[in-house]
């Protein structure tokens, strides 16, 4: 695996361990080459991917695996486009056959306008997938009650949205993200809503174990530069969280001693 310098502060998800706490998507890039360059700049070790029909009329079309090597980067197949548990199981079984991955991202969406997860169907799907032997990282609403239920079922990571997918609005409900972080015994990864580096920092400062983003990098004017910014943001937010921030105060407190003035 890339960046294989071991540090103590790794991200453990199911049976996997990562040095990077950033997970990036592979959608919306100009081409796979740009995607691959952004991945290298980001230092991410895991990418989300979608499962779709091969274009049988043009077998020579470039394939993602030609640009991002699944042996070096963990592929996290998603269930985007699935609206029922059965669809999700079918899609991920195919993904497993294509590449052998057990770690998967479950997302059961609802209305295309807001792409909020359908939590009723998400819970049902998670149960089916876990029974089928998958390690489920689950995209969910930022509702601590649902998050707890998903954890109790055996999901290996809870992935609440920060804001609607692709909106770039940043972390909208810090209170809920914090509540989910505090109650969870599995990694909490903000999935969706990050727009720029400061949003990723905020997620990490809240104590999240990682951040998953796609559009924030892919739709930046310079995706490669933004990928690098996100790498630093996730590290900065994590370090700040571990360092423990100073308490806030109502009034100023001089940094230079007042005693001994001439």
């Amino acid at each position: 695996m890339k960046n294989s310098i071991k540090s103590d502060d790794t991200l453990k998800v199911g049976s996997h361990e990562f040095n990077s706490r950033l997970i990036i998507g592979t959608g919306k890039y100009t081409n796979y080459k740009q995607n691959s360059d952004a991945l290298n700049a980001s230092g991410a070790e895991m990418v989300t991917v979608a499962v779709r029909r091969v274009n049988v009329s043009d077998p020579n079309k470039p394939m993602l695996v030609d640009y991002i090597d699944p042996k070096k980067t963990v592929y996290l197949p998603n269930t985007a486009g699935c609206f029922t548990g059965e669809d999700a199981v079918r899609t991920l079984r195919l993904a497993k056959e294509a590449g052998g991955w057990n770690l998967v991202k479950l997302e059961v969406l609802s209305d295309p306008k807001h792409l909020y997860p359908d939590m009723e169907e998400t819970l049902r799907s998670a149960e089916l997938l876990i029974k089928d032997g998958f390690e489920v990282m689950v995209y969910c609403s930022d509702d601590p009650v649902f998050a707890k239920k998903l954890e109790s079922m055996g999901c290996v990571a809870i992935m609440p949205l920060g804001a609607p997918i692709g909106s770039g609005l940043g972390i909208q409900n810090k209170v809920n993200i914090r509540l989910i972080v505090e109650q969870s015994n599995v990694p909490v990864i903000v999935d969706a809503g990050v727009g720029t580096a400061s949003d990723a920092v905020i997620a990490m400062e809240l104590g999240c174990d990682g951040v998953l983003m796609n559009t924030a990098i892919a739709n930046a004017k310079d995706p490669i530069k933004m990928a690098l910014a996100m790498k630093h943001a996730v590290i900065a937010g994590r370090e700040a969280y571990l360092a423990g921030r100073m308490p806030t105060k109502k009034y100023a407190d001089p940094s230079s001693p007042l005693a001994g003035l001439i």
Partner: protein
Amino acid sequence: MYLIVNGHRYDNLEDDMTMSELLDYLKLPAKKIAIERNREIISKSTYNTVRLNDGDIMEIIHFIGGG
């Protein structure tokens, strides 16, 4: 025989063709894909031996960019 592959109908295919032969015909690399026949996954290790039947509905998938 005919097959439905990813929603497209392919007529006049050789009878009893194997999965591998279909992939050769479609010029698709076995390594990068996964296949369902009539909603059941065909294991990669059996591509050389599995014979297809008239009217089989095939889904051939791969990974593309996604979030």
